[in-house]
């Protein structure tokens, strides 16, 4: 236990004093503040003169404004935090010759990975929490509406899911830092992974859906076929953690969303689809909807860890 504490302590000191962290934090803080400001101003304009709608506070995070919503920003940029914090976790120690020293101290070898992962998670938590608080403060002064209890709960759950999501990418990058000896190689591999899951999976999903359930002029009007098409597309896109995250935070932060499925605005389904805006979902029901997604996110993290352990325990540690 003491070994892991010493490692966490050192890693945290490293993170907080590194330029890498400072730049990342500054960048995220800046973008979030600008986004919130724009969204907040927009909301104030739109809502002036209206009776206070429900969940205004949450709208701060979900409204897109002129650029993107804060939730979208974290979904897209969050992985980068995890990747940047972890891509050189093990291989830097290896190349600087400190790994053999570390491994020859009376600590278990998994304490090295665990310590690095936990210190990363602590860093991520501090980063996301502080940004969320600052953004909330700014938003509150802009729109002047105090959040309700349920909204605060929803924000906290959103924060937890976000931490799990970023930690997942941290796990992936630590795995890559074990697999690849070169720091540049593992940096590129993690970036490739990120780009693949952000852009190509959604593209690939529509390609697969088109191939399996083609929609042409004659079949376009068939709702059943359309549903099938969307179903295939959704299933394929769910292999991306980003999709899992988008779906689950969407539900949590937007109480009027009742399903993670996409909208279909035609025929009888249109009624069902638009019915979801009529009454917000209770918090417990929202959680119930996203539990499978959350479990998948955690499962991917655990798998990454399992592989990391298996590889790292067997790896030769030489001073060369």
């Amino acid at each position, binding site marked *: 236990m*003491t*070994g892991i*504490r*010493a*490692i966490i*302590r*050192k890693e945290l000191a*490293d993170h907080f*004093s590194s330029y890498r962290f400072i730049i990342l934090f500054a960048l995220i803080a800046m973008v979030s503040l600008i986004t919130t400001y724009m969204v907040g101003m927009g909301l104030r304009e739109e809502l002036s003169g209206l009776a206070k709608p429900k969940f205004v506070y949450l709208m701060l995070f979900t409204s897109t404004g002129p650029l993107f919503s804060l939730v979208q920003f974290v979904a897209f940029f969050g992985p980068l935090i995890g990747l940047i914090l972890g891509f050189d976790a093990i291989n830097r*120690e290896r190349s*600087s*010759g*400190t*790994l*053999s*020293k*570390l*491994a*020859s*101290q*009376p*600590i*278990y070898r998994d304490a090295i990975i665990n310590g690095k992962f936990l210190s990363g998670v602590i860093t991520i938590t501090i980063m996301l929490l502080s940004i969320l608080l600052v953004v909330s403060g700014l938003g509150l002064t802009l729109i002047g509406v105090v959040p309700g209890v349920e909204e605060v709960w929803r924000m906290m759950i959103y924060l937890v899911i976000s931490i799990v999501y970023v930690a997942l990418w941290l796990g992936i990058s630590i795995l890559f830092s074990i697999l690849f000896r070169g720091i540049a190689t593992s940096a590129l591999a993690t970036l490739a992974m990120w780009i693949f899951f952000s852009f190509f999976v959604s593209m690939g999903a529509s390609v697969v859906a088109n191939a399996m359930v083609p929609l042409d002029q004659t079949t376009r009007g068939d709702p059943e076929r359309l549903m099938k098409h969307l179903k295939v597309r959704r299933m394929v896109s769910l292999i991306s953690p980003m999709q899992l995250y988008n779906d689950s935070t969407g539900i949590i932060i937007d109480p009027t969303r009742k399903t993670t499925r996409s909208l279909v605005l035609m025929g009888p389904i249109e009624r069902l689809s638009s019915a979801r805006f009529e009454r917000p979902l209770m918090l417990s029901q929202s959680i119930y909807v996203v539990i499978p997604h959350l479990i998948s996110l955690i499962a991917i993290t655990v798998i990454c860890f399992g592989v990391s352990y298996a590889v790292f325990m067997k790896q*030769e*540690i*030489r*001073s*060369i």
Partner: protein
Amino acid sequence: MKRSAIIETDHLTKHYGTTVAVDELTFSIQEGEIFGFLGPNGSGKTTTLLMLLGLTEATSGTAQVAGFNPTKEAIKVKRIVGYIPENIGFYDDMNGKENLQFIARLNNIPDTVSAPKITDALERVGLKDDAAKKVAAFSRGMRQRLAIAELLIKEPTIAFLDEPTLGLDPEGTTLIIDYIQSLSKDNHMTILLSSHDLTQVQRIADRIGIMIHGRLIAEGPLEKLAHEKLGVEDREISLDEVYMKYFQEVSG
């Protein structure tokens, strides 16, 4: 004085694929002695050290370090063994003191206990004035001295030193060897020292082991080896001579 074996190996073997790094190594090291471990690069010295530390698993054969099995009781072995790897690494963006403190924490030494120890150790290896400097600015000799300070913090009963004088100038080498001798004398550590610096090894080693191609071809005090190989008893012998003789025999 009757000494007991603190390290013992029995037909210790390590294969990397088809190459045999260590071939049926059987030897023992007595408590409190300085054992000079010689041999050309790639002869299996480092692999042997790694096996004794439990960092690498032996293909076959067994080893015992202070009564513990390095593979099964790695943590217990690592608690009492200090290891200075070849080209030892430090955290470059931390200063000398912080590096030592990290080692102390990993060894479960509370900060209150380690603080005076760190000051003493830095003074003893002559790094007192450089303690606040980042290790990135350290010269090679200073890094090796910091490594010695690490041993003074950890205070192991056994120290493995893998080429601690590699790439040092003659004065630096002498200094390090003196420190190692004092680790043995003043701190009562058993020392396993691998080096290419034969004159220096000869100066401090109680016994010598020569390893070539993964085999320990000779082992014993220098006088014994000299007697076996050169047939001399009384004249001034140098380890160089003995080593070359063994080496030529195996290679030629």
